């Protein structure tokens, strides 16, 4: 496994641990899933995709 892949795996794992621990500490029950309409889900998906693209292109923004 390359260093980059290994780093990404560890990073994801630590992020998951942090979120799980934080949610547990606040006593949040994860068994009940939020009721969202298909429209809401599509909107949320599009928002997340947009943010992902923005983060990727951030370092390529050029100011002259």
């Amino acid at each position, binding site marked *: 496994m390359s260093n980059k892949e290994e780093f990404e795996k560890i990073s994801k794992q630590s992020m998951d641990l942090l979120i799980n621990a934080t949610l547990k500490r606040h006593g949040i029950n994860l068994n009940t899933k939020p009721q969202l309409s298909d429209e809401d889900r599509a909107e949320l998906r599009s928002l*997340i995709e947009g943010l992902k693209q923005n983060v990727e292109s951030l370092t390529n923004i050029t100011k002259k």
Partner: protein
Amino acid sequence: MSSRVWKGETPVLADNRGGYAYAPQKFNALDPNCAHPWDFCSGDETQEADQTTKSVQASFESIVIKDSCDVEVITTDTQAAINLQVALQAAIQLVISISIASSDQAEVLTQELTQKLINKQVNRQQTYIENSRGVKVTTTDTDLAVNVQVLLQVLLALVARLDIL
């Protein structure tokens, strides 16, 4: 009210940390008998100060190009990066508030998750180009770039964990 100082008592000064101020004697690093003023503080107070410093966000960049031609400067758009950071924090709060009924709890959770991870120190960049031709300079605000990447990771992990999509 009568003054105790006029009665010949030594005035006792209290600092804002609830302890006593030892400031009158100037610290001298070369004097082995001179204790550093912070030596009087306990470990908890040091941690408090550290945590407060972490929330500082500032980025200053100045680019000066003088008597030059064919100069290309590529830099991180700080304002765009900060806007993106705010948008990511809002999205995290949105995802949490969708999943958790209590809005107070949602806000506390968002703050806890984002403030723990965002690590920003004051970033100062100064670029000065004078009497140059055909120069290309690339600068990056690493702190901001890392912050948005980490926030995106939190958002994606949350969406996966809460099984929203």
